[in-house]
């Protein structure tokens, strides 16, 4: 009688190794093990077939979570917490039956001393998140909703596309809706900064019925301060324009100064003036005429800069 347990154990080991791909030495070892007895081969075929058969599960992405599963996120006990302190990623989760998808967030992720910037987390919908240092992110991702709150710090998202269930990030007083993207959100006391790597996001001001949402595409950076939105488009993006809405002149000037050798200097008296408009960032003439036309400011141009005052 064959030692079925041992053979199946070995076969399972080989399936698991194959699962992460074999190096040359392992491949030779595997072939030898396969050839050494039919029992080995047959056991391997059986387990490999079962493992490959499980690929059908990829069709169930959201179904899997709708069933009464225990949470996907790891439960970390106190002892484990101390052990993890070095890289300090803590994951807390509520048991499935206590979770109320609509109201209470299911999972809180916090990275205190972020050891490696390559460290990413997988949300249960397949979206990948990279946390910055001193970051707290609260996630509530389930079959029907995908919403995340950035409470502190910054995070970069690679969102798993799902038309029917938009991925939403709440940060400060803004709601960022993913429109099929890779983007980052950083939050500090003054406002948020959203940088879009791929795809686009929509950024709207919460509790403000008459504000217009901003759509940012690949290469765009959006900075907000309170109710202001300063949308910066990277010079390399197709549109190549900078636009802003209800932004303070001082902020607009600092953004533009990133693109131009000739700097804009704004006097304190004029710094808080709110302006809106859009033009190409290196088009200083355009900026100047915009200011002269629409705003109560004095513009004085010299070879080394543009001086704006009231």
């Amino acid at each position: 009688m064959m030692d079925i347990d041992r053979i199946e154990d070995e076969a399972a080991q080989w399936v698991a190794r194959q699962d992460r791909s074999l190096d040359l030495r392992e491949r030779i070892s595997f072939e030898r093990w396969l050839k050494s007895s039919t029992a080995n081969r047959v056991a391997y075929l059986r387990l490999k077939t079962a493992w490959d058969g499980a690929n059908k599960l990829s069709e169930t992405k959201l179904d899997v979570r709708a069933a009464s599963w225990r949470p996907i996120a790891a439960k970390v006990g106190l002892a484990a917490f101390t052990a993890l302190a070095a890289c300090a990623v803590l994951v807390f989760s509520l048991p499935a039956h206590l979770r109320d998808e609509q109201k209470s967030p299911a999972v809180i992720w916090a990275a205190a001393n972020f050891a490696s910037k390559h460290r990413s987390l997988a949300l249960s919908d397949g979206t990948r998140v990279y946390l910055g240092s001193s970051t707290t992110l609260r996630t509530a991702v389930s079959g029907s909703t995908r919403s995340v709150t950035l409470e502190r710090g910054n995070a970069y998202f690679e969102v798993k596309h799902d038309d029917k269930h938009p991925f939403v990030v709440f940060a400060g007083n803004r709601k960022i809706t993913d429109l099929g993207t890779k983007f980052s959100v950083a939050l500090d006391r003054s406002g948020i900064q959203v940088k879009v790597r791929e795809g686009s996001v929509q950024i709207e001001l919460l509790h403000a019925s008459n504000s217009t949402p901003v759509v940012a595409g690949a290469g765009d950076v959006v900075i907000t301060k309170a109710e202001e939105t300063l949308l910066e488009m990277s010079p390399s993006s197709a549109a190549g324009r900078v636009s802003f809405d209800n932004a303070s002149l001082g902020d607009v000037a600092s953004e533009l100064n990133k693109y131009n050798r000739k700097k804009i200097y704004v006097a304190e008296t004029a710094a808080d003036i709110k302006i809106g408009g859009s033009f190409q960032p290196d088009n200083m003439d355009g900026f100047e005429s915009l200011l002269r036309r629409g705003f109560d400011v004095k513009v004085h141009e010299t070879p080394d800069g543009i001086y704006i005052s009231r």
Partner: protein
Amino acid sequence: MHDVNESLDAWFVREILPLEPTLTRFLRRNWTDEAEVADLRQEAYVKVYEAAAQHGKPGAPKAFLFKVVKNILVDRQHKDKVIPIGSLSDLEEFASVSDEASPEQYAAARQEITRLQQALDTLSDRVREVVILRKVYGMSQRDVARNLGIRENTVEQHVAKGVRVLAQHVEDKRGKVVSQSKRYVRSHTRIAKQGLQT
């Protein structure tokens, strides 16, 4: 030589392995020692594979498999001095009757996914997490390790555990997984449970 094996492997996976649920149910009903079922099944597989290798693939794989199984059981009965209540002819009758869905029907998409999910339910938390991240989200073992904060080798071990459970779950439609217990009692006279059952 490599090619011959490859086409044999493919044939084996296509024609023989889908018969496992039928085969296992048959073995369970006709052999009292639960723990030996896996052994017997393995022995049948080996014999079928080797016969196909040496004498060519059988035209009717299911009939061939059951013929092989029947012979194995007979041999074992003699060796173990088990007194079966039924007779050999009962075995023959049963083997030719197909009383459940064919492999194609059984593999109908929805049933298959349900079966897989039931199998996952039986896994420990950590092994299930690994299997889900691998299979549902297609994450590499390396990424799974990073995401769960465990070593890559540990992920590999969890996959090995998951694989065995997934394979075991093939045989039981009722959702019960048989654990591979090493405990069994071998005695000279074993009374068969209610004879040979269909």
